[in-house]
């Protein structure tokens, strides 16, 4: 069957069961947009900015587990996706970014809207392509989807020159054989060690007295949450999570310690610091968790379970590693491990949890932590929470309890301010059965608030919960604690009337300034099937505690 390159792209998207894409048209993708014009099977969401499209596709992917697809033009269209791609790369999100490119005969001549997007995105993609041979297009798209979604997922960029989009191509059906790249078996050696290390791990688990599980985003991606609960309950080990791990272990479970690291709970940080065996599952020992390497789990033998061999001993040396899908590893460990009994360690953990619960002292009539607690109550923990970056993100991680994977969507690795609004749009479109709430700060929100246009245009029934302290709260917190209160360029307002801003987009908005108003407003907002913005007027001196100062051991907590 002879089709144009553009039609081939559409057919391949259908073949991959893509029914929703996010994008922004332009000169170098006109043929693809033309092919999209009569395609009923694929809904295209036009965002206000390509970065918003990328974050939306990312949010969609994180909420559903399916790959997010972005379609943008060459040059600035492509470069506008860069922050979104890097965000997805750092958090292992499967994303397919199709960028238009100038025609082959114009390549390399600094043509209008030409940019080397493959070169630019090489360090922030799992893989990327420039399709120069039209005949390779179907293979490239099939391989790209396979690469983006298999193993440790990640973003893939496909750069397609305009002449390839118009070339006539013979589209052959996909082969049922595994793609060649997958058959290379590069990780044989690691798989060989797995068996031996699994046996060693079982012995270690049997003899340890103070085990702690530290789980990360890999458990959410690998849908291994059930297996994690079974494992923890069998070895009676408390569980702490990284930011990306939120949802991997139920927030109400008696073994749950909370987040670990810079803004982790005292119980989590103390437990890790005194553990004699740390089982890291689908986590990468980020500096925001580890802080001072020598001070992290200093007494523990570390078992590291991760799909990606490159994560083993990258930041913190482990004693044993098992490189495989976390779900199957946890399953096998649980089946084979000796059931343990609770001991003094579990008593100690309970004591810490009682002595050091997350707490806050309201610094004004409205406390952000109170808002998050109420939100949990009102939504009964059933909502999907997206966040921006900074204090809002930390409070959302601390004071809302997540029951299952893919309910907490946040830019963990890159820490992208402006991520949340776009992500909430994509999450809502992927999970229409759930209420999606974006917890934002005023600084982050302003970065991409143009996407309110998308929210309004498509009437996306999401809530923007804007914690407005008129400042860059987290930076201000650091200035207060480590720069003698010299608040250099972190005061933002009063500048924007967010209620009026929402009104300009035809979005219903509320303003809350005391704890008493919170519950009613939240209840009303959650019940509405339309976009809502809630501005919460909070004190700029509110801080995120507990906190570990940068470079300190995580047992050295201030609050």
């Amino acid at each position, binding site marked *: 069957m002879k089709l144009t390159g553009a039609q081939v792209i559409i057919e391949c998207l259908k073949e991959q069961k893509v029914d929703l894409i996010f994008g922004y048209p332009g000169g170098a993708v006109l043929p693809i947009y033309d092919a999209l014009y009569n395609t009923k099977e694929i809904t295209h969401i036009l965002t206000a900015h390509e970065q918003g499209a990328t974050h939306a596709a990312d949010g969609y992917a994180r909420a559903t587990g399916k790959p997010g697809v972005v379609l943008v033009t060459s040059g600035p269209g492509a470069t506008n996706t860069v922050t979104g791609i890097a965000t997805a790369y750092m958090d292992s999100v499967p994303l397919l970014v199709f960028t238009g490119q100038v025609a082959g005969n114009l390549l390399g001549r600094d043509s209008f809207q030409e940019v080397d997007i493959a070169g630019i995105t*090489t360090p922030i993609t799992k893989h990327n392509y420039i399709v120069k041979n039209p005949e390779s297009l179907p293979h490239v798209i099939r391989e790209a989807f396979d690469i983006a979604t298999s193993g440790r997922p990640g973003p893939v960029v496909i750069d397609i020159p305009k002449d390839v989009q118009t070339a006539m191509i013979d589209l052959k059906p996909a082969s049922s054989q595994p793609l060649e*790249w997958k*058959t*290379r078996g*590069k*990780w*044989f050696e690691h798989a060989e060690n797995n068996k031996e290390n699994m046996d060693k791990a079982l012995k270690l688990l049997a003899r340890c007295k103070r085990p702690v599980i530290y789980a990360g985003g890999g458990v959410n991606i690998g849908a291994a949450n059930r297996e994690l609960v079974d494992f923890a309950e069998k070895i009676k080990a408390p569980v702490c999570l990284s930011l990306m791990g939120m949802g991997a272990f139920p927030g109400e479970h008696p073994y749950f310690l909370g987040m670990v690291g810079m803004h982790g709970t005292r119980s989590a940080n103390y437990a890790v610091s005194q553990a004699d065996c740390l089982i890291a599952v689908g986590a990468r020992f980020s500096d925001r968790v580890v802080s001072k390497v020598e001070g992290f789990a200093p007494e523990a033998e570390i078992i590291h379970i991760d799909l990606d061999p*490159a994560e083993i001993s990258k930041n913190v040396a482990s004693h044993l590693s098992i490189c495989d899908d976390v779900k199957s590893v946890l399953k096998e460990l649980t089946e084979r491990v000796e059931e343990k009994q609770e001991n003094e360690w579990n008593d100690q953990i309970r004591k810490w949890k009682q002595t050091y619960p997350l707490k806050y002292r309201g610094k004004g009539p409205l406390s952000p932590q109170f808002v998050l607690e109420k939100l949990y109550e009102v939504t009964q923990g059933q909502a999907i929470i997206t966040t921006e970056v900074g204090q809002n993100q930390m409070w959302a991680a601390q004071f809302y309890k997540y029951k299952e994977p893919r309910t907490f969507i946040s830019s963990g690795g890159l820490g992208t301010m402006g991520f949340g609004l776009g992500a909430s749009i994509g999450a809502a479109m992927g999970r229409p059965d759930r209420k999606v709430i974006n917890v934002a700060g005023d600084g982050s929100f302003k970065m991409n608030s143009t996407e309110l246009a998308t929210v309004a245009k498509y009437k996306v029934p999401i809530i923007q919960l804007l914690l407005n302290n008129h400042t860059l709260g987290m930076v201000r917190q650091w200035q207060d604690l480590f720069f003698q209160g010299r608040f250099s360029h972190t005061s933002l307002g009063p500048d924007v009337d967010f209620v009026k801003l929402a009104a300009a987009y035809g979005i219903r908005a509320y303003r809350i300034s005391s704890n008493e108003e919170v519950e009613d407003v939240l209840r009303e907002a959650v019940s509405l099937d339309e976009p809502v913005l809630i501005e919460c007027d909070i004190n700029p001196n509110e801080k995120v505690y507990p906190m570990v100062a940068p470079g300190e051991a995580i047992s050295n907590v201030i609050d």
Partner: protein
Amino acid sequence: MKHVLGVLVDNNPGVLSKVSGLFSRRGFNIDSLAVGVTENPAISRITIVVDGDDYIVGQVTKQLNKLINVIKVAIISEDSISRELALIKVKATPETRNQIVDIVNIFRAKVVDVNRNSIIVEITGDDKKIGALEDMLNDFGILEMVRTGNISIDRGLKMVKYIHPDNEEVKFYGKNVL
């Protein structure tokens, strides 16, 4: 400590920049890098000399393996055959020319071009041998030098080769294939 890596990659445009970009991004230092096609025209082999401890080499290997276009990464053993080719242009007068030729002969190098003011010497060998000749020729004034970078190959049946895991050859070569 120096380590030599043999890296098999797809012979595609853009692959070299993906590999070299990885080194700069992760802060690994490359002493030399040489690339050329292998017995299989679809596969190129990159020989990289890395300076670093075991942690660095472990990281380099793992990160390289993550690149889709990298087919195989192997650490070449120290007793392997290593060679590099250098072309050295040396200042030469009628008075010094013979002395230079004598030195060149001792090193079993070759004079490949002569004119009134200079000589071009071709030498093949490992890093040490080339370094030693360079040192000797410095006395006469080196005008220009160009080096290919090191390439290495293991002795005997030990080899860096891509064989599909289902292929019968795997059983034949067994563990020799890195």
